[in-house]
């Protein structure tokens, strides 16, 4: 693989909650267009890491560079505008708005701040195109509060796409979905990746992680214990111990 300048470079990220060390000197590097799986047992710090990268919380020490720029002190909305976009474990739709209305928020508040993203179309037309891509076109004018679980997940993804990410952090987008639905979401993510978007996938469904990621990072108790190709990581003695016990 040709070594490119990293898109995201997080160095020795530490985060404590009171006496609990949630992240202990974690390094993460993502190259443009890369697909990275982030796994770890419950409570290992995956979500904390996502929150630190996306700006929902601020890391105590360590630096985060994105596109060559220090971002660790920027508020979340600013990071979204730069191109780090996340989805949520529990879908958080704007419930008072229609499905297409949900997408116009990131289009107006994030995509518009990056030139060359609108392709001469207005927000509404762009939103419909994105909904077409994720298969929600016929729900465009439905209330976002009345969607099914898998539709919620798709809306969550579509809304992230509408922010025109360079790096998408997909936080358990597939939890609770059926096998067929998982495949559907994976193919959506792959399609997005084909368009050049780097993706970090946080997932408990190993099948999805193995199928999707080019590289897998394993967090255990706030520390990174492995960072390699998926099959190497799965055979790593330390990873096996963390997941299956001694």
């Amino acid at each position, binding site marked *: 693989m040709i070594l490119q300048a990293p898109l995201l470079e997080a160095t020795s990220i530490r985060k404590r909650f009171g006496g609990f060390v949630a992240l202990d000197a974690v390094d993460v590097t993502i190259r443009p267009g890369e697909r990275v799986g982030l796994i770890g047992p419950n409570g290992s710090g995956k979500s904390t890491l996502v929150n630190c990268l996306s700006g929902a919380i601020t890391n105590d020490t360590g630096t985060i560079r994105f596109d060559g720029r220090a971002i660790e002190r920027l508020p979340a*909305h600013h990071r979204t505008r730069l191109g780090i976009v996340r989805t949520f474990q529990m879908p*958080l*739709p*704007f419930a*008072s708005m229609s499905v297409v209305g949900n997408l116009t*928020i990131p289009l107006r*508040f*994030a995509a518009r701040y990056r030139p060359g993203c609108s392709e001469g179309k207005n927000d509404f037309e762009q939103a419909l195109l994105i909904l077409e891509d994720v298969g929600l076109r016929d729900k465009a004018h439905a209330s976002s509060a009345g969607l099914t679980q898998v539709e919620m997940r798709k809306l969550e993804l579509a809304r992230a796409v509408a922010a025109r990410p360079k790096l998408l952090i997909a936080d358990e987008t597939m939890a609770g979905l059926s096998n067929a639905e998982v495949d559907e979401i994976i193919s959506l993510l792959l399609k997005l990746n084909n368009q050049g978007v780097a993706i970090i996938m946080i997932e408990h469904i190993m099948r999805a992680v193995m199928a999707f990621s080019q590289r897998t990072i394993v967090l255990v108790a706030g520390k990174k214990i492995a960072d390699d190709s998926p099959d190497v990581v799965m055979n790593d003695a330390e990873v096996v111990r963390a997941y299956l016990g001694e």
Partner: protein
Amino acid sequence: MTRVPSWVWPIVVAGLVLAASRVVKNEYYMFAGYVVLQYVVLASAWNILGGYSGYVNFGSAAFFAIGAYGTVVLDKLWQPPLVVAIFLGGIVASLVGLVTAYLTLRLRGVFFAIATLALAIVLQTLVMNWDYVGGPLGYYCVRPDSIVGFPSYVNYLFVVMLALAVIAVLVARAIESSFIGRGLAAIRDNELAAECCGVPTLRLKVFATMVSGGLMGMAGAPFPYYITYLDPNSAFSFAYGINSIAMPLVGGMTRWIGPVIGAVLLAVIQQVATVTISSELNLMIVGGLLIGFITVAPNGIVGLFEQYGQQRHGRASP
């Protein structure tokens, strides 16, 4: 049918009210109408923060009193034209809004509401102990001579408040239909998701608090001349805080017209009740309506109409 832009309606209605104020000779209607219009301003202003972004402000009385006491200070200093007092009252109130916003908007939900309530109490205590504006004894505000072109000073106050009501309604409407209103609605639905969609949540909330507080301050500025005797209890009256929440809630909080409907309805009922039943019964009526609407129609009168429209539309097209 050509569509009339909706911003025209508030102006047309205001024009009709203005015309009526020239015809009606009984000054009592000016007195009562002033209060109704004052609540149109307060309710519309409250709704910009509370309705659009979902941050409940219990401290409307504080912003209102800032405007009122601003006028008292100016009256003692050099008696400027009322318009100047309104302008300055608005600016000071929106600056207080700015400070309050920065201090409290990191507090979510009920904590923000408690903080705004505390603001009103703190300010009232300060005014109580500020002898320059009369302290607990209050201040007699002598009305200037009547203004050229107006039959009486009360009529002038009424027209001024009518103009403020139009301004408040147009500002609320402009915010609602702009991207700021969309951003505030996203905050109301889910603040974390909004922030992660690129919405500068803190900045929008601060902006909404400043506009909301500023308009409330402007509504309070003419009050000393209206009431002619201002004391802390009337300026910081509990009724302002309660009414400016109840009116948008009864009318409907997601549209600019909601607070207008709620304010006209509740304020008229209160005015009628004051003269026909008892002046003490006012807030009880408000309380009763509030409970009724929260249980039966949480989206207010506007919500009821929208629901009805959707149902009818739903039946028409299979």
